[in-house]
């Protein structure tokens, strides 16, 4: 974790005061949570979101510090500014949570997602799929005479755009990892 350090659950350093309070505007935020990798910790985070009626657009989790047993959970969520602040404060209360970072506020940040897309088709459609994959810098990771599996990495909207293009060309299956994100700079 680098860059601006927001004290766990702090409201003082919050950008909350800079925005209209209790506004109805829905904001999309990417939140990074550093947690102790103990059993049930993901259930605590997910349970918090479902129990308090918050939204999860995507969620990724993996251990990032094997010696310290720390996992990083990246959550993309949306809500009013007040709800976003509550989400961060509520995350901060969970005992095994070490740090909560709102990358959208602390940003700018780099957001990346990986998707694997299977496209089934023949003839012109197959050629077109391959041509578009090239434009999007998607890699072919599997191929048969009538199908491709592409691997594509990028911001979520790039993946959306690619998937939309593949749909008329025979998209049959799509798997996405959800967003991983880091702050830019040091």
């Amino acid at each position: 974790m680098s860059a601006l350090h927001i004290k766990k659950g702090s409201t003082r350093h919050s950008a909350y005061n800079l925005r209209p309070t209790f506004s109805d505007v829905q904001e999309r935020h990417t939140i990074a949570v550093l947690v102790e990798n103990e059993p049930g910790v993901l259930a605590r985070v997910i349970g918090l979101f479902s129990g308090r009626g918050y939204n999860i657009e995507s969620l990724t989790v993996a251990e990032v510090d094997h010696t310290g047993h720390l996992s990083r959970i990246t959550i993309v969520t949306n809500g009013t500014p007040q709800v976003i602040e509550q989400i961060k404060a509520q995350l901060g209360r969970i005992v095994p949570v070490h740090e909560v970072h709102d990358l959208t506020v602390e940003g700018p940040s780099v957001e990346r997602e990986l998707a694997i897309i299977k496209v089934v088709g023949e003839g012109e459609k197959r050629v077109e799929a391959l041509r578009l994959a090239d434009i999007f810098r998607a890699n072919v990771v599997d191929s048969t005479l009538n199908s491709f599996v592409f691997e594509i990495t990028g911001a979520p909207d790039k993946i959306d755009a690619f998937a939309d293009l593949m749909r008329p060309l025979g998209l049959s299956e799509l798997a996405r990892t959800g967003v991983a994100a880091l702050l830019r700079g040091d």
Partner: protein
Amino acid sequence: MTTEMTGAKMVIQALKDQGVDTVFGYPGGAVLPIYDEIFQQNEIRHILVRHEQGAVHAAEGYARSTGKPGVALVTSGPGATNAVTGLTDALLDSIPIVVLTGQVPTFMIGSDAFQEADTVGITRPCTKHNWLVKETDALAQTLHEAFHVATAGRPGPVLIDIPKDVQFATGTYQAPKPAASHYQPEVKGDLEEITELVAAIEKAERPVFYTGGGVINSGPAASQLLRELVDATGIPITSTLMGLGAYPASGENWLGMLGMHGLYEANLAMHGCDLMINIGARFDDRITGRLDAFSPNSTKAHIDIDPSSINKVIRVDIPIVGDVGHVLEDMLKVWKARGRKTNAPALAKWHEEIATWRKVNCLAYTTSEETIKPQYALQRLEALTKDRDRYITTEVGQHQMWAAQYLGFEDPNRWMTSGGLGTMGYGFPASIGAQIAHPDSLVINVAGEASWLMNMQEMGTAAQYRLPVKQFILNNERLGMVRQWQELLHGERYSHSWSESLPDFVKLAEAFGAKGILVSDPKDLDDAIMEMLNYEGPVLFDCLVEKHENCFPMIPSGKAHNEMLLGEADTQGVIQAGGAVLV
């Protein structure tokens, strides 16, 4: 100190090292090794309850009356699920308790074994934190961590699930280590914000302190500092249900409780203030009423140890994250250093305005010579017990609100009631916990007959341990608060809100070897109360009261503080559709 011992022995050792003297529990298959260790020692007293819910509420009563964490021990499966209500109650009221549950052996977890339940899964949302301990070597540290988490920061319930094979196996015991946990909530408030608040206090024309359970939870020193600050500044103070006793009811700046059934002067002071200083309260919906009309013209400061409480429902101008005691200490220092200033002329005017509201005498009620009014019963109880070393618990409903209105609390930790969860059945076991902690004090549970019946099995516990708990039942043969709402909101259709086939409470008491007293004539009330107080043992006091009395003042759902109902005459058609959907 590190020594080899079984997991079961570790549990006892860790409890001793944490200063625990009492455990409330109920045995079962999955905790037998721990019970075997309890049998072989004398330092920790085990109180056998009659239902696991009773064990947890008793632990809460113990915790709230002592300031120390309460401990409960129950078995797996149904033992654990029966503890869920108590855990949730403690979570909502921020009460530090440690619940130990047995679990089926690790190698059987997930096999739907006999009395198996996913206890950590079930209790995850109703504990501050919980653990399933899978190795005996990790048990001691987990137990110590559990006590730390339960008491540090905003207190709350924790649960440790211990499989039976972990209890039998031998491992290395480790003594508690200070600061071993990464969980260290900040207790000091930001000095800049504290100074900002002090500056606001100096200028304020109509300030009010709005205090809550956080003051009690912070410890007796916090209450002392609060009294010093309130009396030095002369700022009026009101409190939530949870915070009663932090400032004495006899204090000159006391406004009484606020909220849905709070006092007229307290609610109007909240509505009309220009500076609201929330200390350890959480803008609960019983307090705020209609949010968009809540204290519309005030600057709001909020002192809370839990950052998530701040700006949760009410936008505050001066947020201070920290422990109430620490923040009050700094506030006093800063206020004194800046010359002990207040806006004295404006404050005097403010007190005059409050005095006119006080004259309304909102707790007045129609007296009766024939039937005992519940308010009268509590006034007499107050008059006959207020000078005693007294602890009060309550159940939930009208009697609870009347107790909060008519009883005066001079000290913290003397008043135990289920505020957040509103758990009927809380008061009786809580009174047992308080009595165990204070064997020589007077412990009274103010109850309604319906609430009391919900955990009446604990009569067995009271009788077994000869606990002189006084069960002061205001018996209206109704679910009084439900009945009141049905009258006001549901066209007087009293759907299932009265109890037929109530027991004869005197005979019931006698069946348990306790004393029963029945009183129905106001003229006999004082003598009956004295008989209760003079009896050295548990008493079931069946006080037959007016059946259709409503609890006032009342802020109807969906209304603001200045739209209070003061009595029956105000009630016609006041609650509209928008308010009816609220609870």
